């Protein structure tokens, strides 16, 4: 066997931001256009603040947004978009309605015209809304049999209590009661340009793209309602919540830990602590419970940011028979990172991963569109990536250790396990106090 040395890395060049332009239109819509001409396409993201909207109506609205306008049927909308290589879809979270799409770059004007018609002249035809309502109910029924969905639902309730973020999927029966007239009213009330941000990224001239957006969307006007959601409550650890799923061959282990928002001075240090703990493959937790113990396939942790608060989420699907040992190792690794400073090597490894994947995220039109839209939702622009990179580059071992001790302490974790309760309750109860869920 020949011993070969690992090649050195060539240091990264200075972070280069793409050319962009921004304008806030008379109606209140902010348009950000970013040039990346690598492929002859354009990506579109439109985020409309949607906090404090009634969940069943808002969810159905997002599903039925493209069902028709005063002059176009749902088929017309889809066909006209396809004709320019385009497609649009809508999604919802507790803070916003997000319209996403893309088209051939030469089809930008047409895609914007169709978007404008959907925004300003929506029909919500009774027949089409009824179809989408039934489909949404079917999708929710399927979600209710998926362990990932059930575990998240239980965790959100446990984290957020009575806060609006506690429930993010409506009940089928609530959806069934929504009428088309209610969608029209909600649309008129809340699908408004004030506070909304449109991001266009691609093979475009940014100024001209904004002109095109202004031309198409100039008629979209009207004030927005205040959708500000109150800050999220502090986490209350409490006993482990065990939700029964009889016969499950795996348990879904979930934890929530406190976190800070993106712009907090401690955020970079917390993200690095998160990576070292469980936020990427070469983390302590993944190397332990997957590569050493073989308890699980894809364990992961991440920091989830909503407008009104952030949380660090821990997730693993583990074999039923090793549910107790998996919790044991998770508590051990949390305890270790909260109690002892990380090694210099593992900090540098996590730091390079954070900086490198940030560049990978900026390397495509879709990646840039997602980043620009996401940052805009927090009042930031792409140039914030410079500040964030600098914060990642300069965070010290002491700062990371301090963040870990504040945020990753196992004593602060809210824990939910979804699994075969009769099989896993005993092993879990050996480690912590367990409370069975109501269901």
């Amino acid at each position, binding site marked *: *066997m*020949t011993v*070969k040395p*690992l*090649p050195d*890395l*060539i240091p*990264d060049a200075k972070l*280069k931001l793409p050319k962009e332009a921004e304008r806030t239109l008379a109606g209140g819509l902010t348009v950000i256009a970013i040039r990346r*001409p*690598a*492929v*002859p396409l354009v990506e579109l993201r439109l985020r409309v603040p949607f906090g404090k909207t009634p969940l069943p109506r808002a969810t159905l609205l997002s599903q039925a947004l493209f069902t028709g306008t005063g002059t176009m049927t*749902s*088929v017309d909308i*889809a*066909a006209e978009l*396809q*004709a*320019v*290589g385009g*497609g649009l879809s809508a999604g919802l979270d507790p803070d916003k309605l997000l319209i996403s799409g893309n088209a*051939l*770059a030469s089809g930008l004007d047409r895609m914007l015209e169709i978007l404008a018609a959907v925004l300003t002249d929506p029909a919500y035809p009774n027949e089409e809304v009824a*179809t989408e309502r*039934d*489909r949404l109910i*079917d999708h929710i*029924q*399927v979600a209710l*049999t*998926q362990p*990932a969905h059930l575990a998240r639902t239980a965790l959100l309730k446990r984290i957020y209590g009575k806060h609006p973020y506690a429930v993010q999927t409506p009940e089928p029966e609530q959806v069934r009661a929504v009428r088309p007239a209610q969608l029209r009213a909600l649309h008129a009330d809340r699908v408004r340009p004030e506070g909304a941000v449109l991001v266009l990224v691609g093979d475009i001239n940014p100024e001209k793209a904004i002109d095109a957006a202004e031309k198409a969307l100039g008629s979209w006007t009207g004030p927005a309602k205040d959708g500000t959601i109150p800050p999220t409550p502090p986490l209350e650890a409490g006993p482990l919540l065990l939700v029964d799923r009889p016969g*499950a*061959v*795996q348990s879904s282990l979930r934890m929530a830990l406190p976190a800070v928002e993106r712009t907090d001075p401690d955020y970079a240090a917390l993200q690095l602590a998160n990576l070292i703990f469980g936020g990427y*493959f*070469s983390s302590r937790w993944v190397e332990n419970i*997957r*590569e*050493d*113990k073989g*308890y*699980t*396939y*894809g364990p992961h942790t991440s920091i989830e940011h909503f407008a009104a608060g952030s949380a660090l989420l821990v997730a693993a699907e583990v*074999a039923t028979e090793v549910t107790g040992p998996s919790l044991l190792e998770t508590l051990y690794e949390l305890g270790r990172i909260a109690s002892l400073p990380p090694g210099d090597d593992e900090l*540098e*490894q996590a730091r*390079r991963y954070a*900086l*490198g*994947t940030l*560049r*990978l995220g*900026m*390397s*495509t*039109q*879709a990646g840039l569109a997602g980043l620009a839209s996401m940052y805009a939702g927090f009042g930031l622009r792409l140039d914030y990536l410079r500040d964030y990179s600098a914060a990642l580059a300069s965070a010290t071992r002491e700062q990371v250790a301090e963040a870990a001790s504040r945020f990753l302490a196992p004593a602060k974790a809210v824990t939910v396990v979804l699994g075969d309760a009769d099989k896993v309750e005993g092993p879990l109860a050996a480690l912590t106090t367990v409370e069975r869920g109501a269901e």
Partner: protein
Amino acid sequence: MARRIKIPATKYPVERFTLDNGLRVVLTPDRSAPVVGVAVVYDVGIRSEPEGRTGFAHLFEHLMFQGSENLEKLAHFRHVQGAGGTFNGSTHLDFTDYFEALPSGALERALFLEADRMRGPRLTEENLLNQIDVVKEEIRVNVMNRPYGGFPWLKLPPVMFRTFANAHDGYGSFGDLDSATVEDAQAFFDRYYACGNATLAVAGDFDVATATEMIRRHFGDVPARPAPDRPDFDEPDLDAERRETYTDKLAPLPGVASAWRVPDPIGSFADYLPFVVLAEVLTDGDASRLVERLVQRDRSVTSIGGYIGFMGDEFQVRNPTALLLQAHMPPGGDSDKVLRTVDEELDRLATDGLRPGELERTQARIATHLLRDTDAVLGRALPMAVLELQRGRPEMLNELPKLIGEVTEAQIVAAAATLRPERRATVEVLPGATA
């Protein structure tokens, strides 16, 4: 409204060469972002695993990450991620790929890592047992512990095909996985993981001369081993409809999937390509034939999708393969009725042809999807490595949008006319959970 938009093309440059040891190399530089993608693809997949060893190609893929000549266990992951990169691998019917995306300054490191495991992974009993456990958890999370697990990619091949190679479960049975040995793994490596049986592709921000020199330095001394003979996995088409039904105890709603054999994607590419467009004519978006009819008008399905290749890899699959349609139905849904309607719509297409603009808009949307995928470095490195491996034509990635745009209505009509009920394999999933 049949104003036609021009379908644009990319012009990614392509350099090809073959090392003395037989490794085929593709370089496609593009300096628009400071990142690179590295892909190594081996010409072995699920169809090549031996009887009694279902799931072995995938298990072996896991073992390729467990250390190699100069690398301890965990080192591969740490070196990629510690360079700011991401990695993965995936096992397909006809090939297995390994890949990294990284900041451009880490290119040589990625080449070193791939070359090291091409010389040979560290195959140990301990790592084998660990990864058998991990793969079992992967199967549990993707198949056993969720509704519609393996539907239809694992459920339909045994209905459609008779030979072990084409019909068996590529994830593998737990019994077969438990029977795997280190000797099996060594034999699999020796037979299939020859550098003459592999391609390397590099995409993104690099200088061709520098990268060529790095590749010669790191891969040049990988021992030359020729590619093994690749069997022809072809088998006769169905002579009568085949259908099976199973109950999924976790599924709340019924579903149905059908597949029809299509022409050889490589040997008969010109005949095959219309089926790629046909799948989208039938199912891409609200204006497609089957979505408009089944979802919007009849409301007999909740969703329907159509694609080619059991793993959705239409330009990376060999013969035999199929066009698939899969649908989820509302409570009490009737598969027979759905299939009858599909037949009716296929007949209508074969008899009346397409509507004005229908073909052009579908082609434009496919072009967007194809172009969009190539924006990421791995969206170029991976398909180019496979196109080199299977066709010796990596530059085809640039040509696909145009080739799609050249498919004619007559070809779509002819393709639709072949999707007859008697050539169809169907699997139906019945709900075993209460909705």
